[in-house]
């Protein structure tokens, strides 16, 4: 992870041990970590200066949805700031709520540090590429689908599909080899994700729905029962 310039990463986590561990690990990878234990403490600091990336827990002490509120407030301060939820809560409801609040990704605490670092790096890369519009494109095109491998953005039929990083990587894994069946483990590996099968299923559902919002008849992603998914192409 050779990052040219040090990034300021805000970590809002109420458990002191986890907070210290993540802060140490991120620090060792050359990031500047600002660790906060509560919503108020974090918000006070964000008003003074925004970090480059925010990692939020949902439950903050007694405030069981404090992370959601913090995400909303932070999004109000900055539309472009990358926000990641890192939480113990893994229900579909929480995932959907978190993403709807404007978070860029939703991770559970099962994730390993290398996976987390890969995501952080990817998010920073996306920001960097957006800042340098002249950079050479690295586009993967499959029919109406176009995946910008630098900006981690997807377009379908020319329209932007708002995919999270996890979703982008999953679509990429499928579309890279159309017709090939990718099972759930492969998809998870591609997405730098440690989740169970159901989470893959609900991710695929959300991805389909995002494409169907543009083209209602979208059926490029095919379920191969008992095996996995494939991009029809």
């Amino acid at each position: 992870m050779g990052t040219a310039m040090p990034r300021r990463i805000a970590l809002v986590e109420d458990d002191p041990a986890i907070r210290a561990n993540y802060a140490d690990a991120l620090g060792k990878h050359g990031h500047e970590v600002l660790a906060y234990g509560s919503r108020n403490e974090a918000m006070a600091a964000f008003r003074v200066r925004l970090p480059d990336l925010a990692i939020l827990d949902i439950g903050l002490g007694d405030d069981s949805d404090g992370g959601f509120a913090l995400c909303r407030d932070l999004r109000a301060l900055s539309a472009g700031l990358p926000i990641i939820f890192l939480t113990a809560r893994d229900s579909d409801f929480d995932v959907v709520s978190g993403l709807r609040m404007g978070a860029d990704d939703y991770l559970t605490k099962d994730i390993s540090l290398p996976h987390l670092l890969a995501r952080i790096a990817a998010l920073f890369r996306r920001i960097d590429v957006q800042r340098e519009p002249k950079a050479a494109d690295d586009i993967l095109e499959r029919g109406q689908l176009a995946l910008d491998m630098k900006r981690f953005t997807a377009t379908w039929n020319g329209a932007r599909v708002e995919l999270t990083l996890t979703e982008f990587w999953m679509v990429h894994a499928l579309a890279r080899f159309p017709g090939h069946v990718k099972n759930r483990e492969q998809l998870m590996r591609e997405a730098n994700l440690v989740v169970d099968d159901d989470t893959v299923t609900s991710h695929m559902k959300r991805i389909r729905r995002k494409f169907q919002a543009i083209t209602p008849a979208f059926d490029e992603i095919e379920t191969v029962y008992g095996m996995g998914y494939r991009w029809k192409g």
Partner: protein
Amino acid sequence: MHRFFSLGLRGQLALAALVLLALPWVGWRYVQEMEGFLLEAQEQTLLGTARAVSTALHERPALMALRSLSPRPFELGIDPLYWFPDTPSSADTEPGPARGESANAREGEIEAILKGIERSTSRIWVVNREFRVIALAGNLKRAESAEVSGSWYADILRELSSRILQRPTENFDAATPEDVLSSGPEVLAALQGAPRTRVRQTPDGKAAIVSAAHPIWAGDEVVGAVVAEESTNSILSVRNRALERLLLATLASFVIASAVLLGLATRISWRIRRLRDETEGAIDAQGRITRKLSGTRAGDEIGDLSRSFSAVLERLAEHHSYLETMASRLSHELRTPVAVVRSSLENLKLEPSPAEARVYVQRAEQGLARLSTILTRMSEASRLEQGLLATERERFDLTLVVSGCVEGYRSAFPARQFDLLIPDAPVAVEGSPELIAQMLDKLVDNANDFGVPGTPISVHLERVGAVAELGEMGRVVLSVSNRGDPLPEGTRERLFASMVSVRRDAGGDKPHLGLGLYVARLIAEFHRGSIHAENLPDGQGVAVKVQLTPLA
């Protein structure tokens, strides 16, 4: 728990009501005693009558010298008073000691006495020492009193009682005094000087006659006897009336008591049965509490029982939901400490450490991975339950899902042989193909864990009960069976409950929490189907069957 001989509450109370039958028996005994008293009283009265008559006749030896009654047939209902003074035509008469004026005077005297006797209700005769009847007055038979009909029930009762009771009749054979005298020990005793009573049957047996005999003294000598007779019909009618009333009273009280007891028993058994049905209905085959018991407000023991049942069920339901959510709450609570351990280990790996330390870190990570798997599985069911609410139902072909999944299993479990049997025609069902695949995953996982290594796993999809002509779709049964030990007795329904495992040893490195079949059940129920497990017919394996309703 039906024994061969079992009585319901109503039957038991009806049996208990039979005790009431002792009442008529007691009454009957009472009436019998009363009858005995009356009979004795009648005997004493008759004896009194005989004594009174004989008192009037004492010391009149001349009287006894009178001609005795001529032996002609007794005629009924004619003149109740027969008095035969000397009749010359009579052959066997003795010449009286006194004739003429004095005889006439005596006759008049005796006639006067007997006239008085005539008023009595008894038949009285006077006999001399030769057993000859010298005077007879009165009649054994009373005038038949017309039974006044009181009311309809009295008529019915009388009709009924006449079948049971012997009714006194006046149509009996009143024996002639000669017959009586020849066979009457009481007359014999009286002629020997001792008053005596006797009860005898008429020759035709239709009535009983009470007779009392009293000697007539003349000096120290018995010159004759007065015999007073009455039928017992008046006592019989008194007895019959008493028995009729007794019958009426006991019958009425029996009917009323039985009706009350029956009503009470019916109500009690209805309430108990309702309580039973409600209690049984509150818990489904899997032991889950599906609805609460209303609990009546009745203040008696049954109301109390229903309230305590209701309270017990409520507490049981709370405990049940606590158990069902425990897995997910536990997994949630454990995630944070697991994250602490994981991030610590990962930090440790970034530090320079001796080679032997790395081995321990690696082992710790392996343990952590297993722990994570357990936590994920524990929350799987509750995540699924939440997810089901938002799942959209679609129409899909079950055969495609099943065959696709089995293809997947063949590559996922290369050491295992899979027997697939599916209908040629598509089987359309409504639901979620992903969920069906997830359910099949659980069932195949389960079969793989239980199946004897090297034996095949059968996945069968069959239509049952379909009648194409009638448009009857029947059911579709998806069964997954493995060879291996049969199910332990009594575990079939519990298998599908949360965190229930009938596995004897949870060996191996795969955690087993008893949630797989629970997840399968949730999915089957989401598809409005049912799931159950059964032993294979040969007892050498287990089949888990899911019944679904296909679409047309």
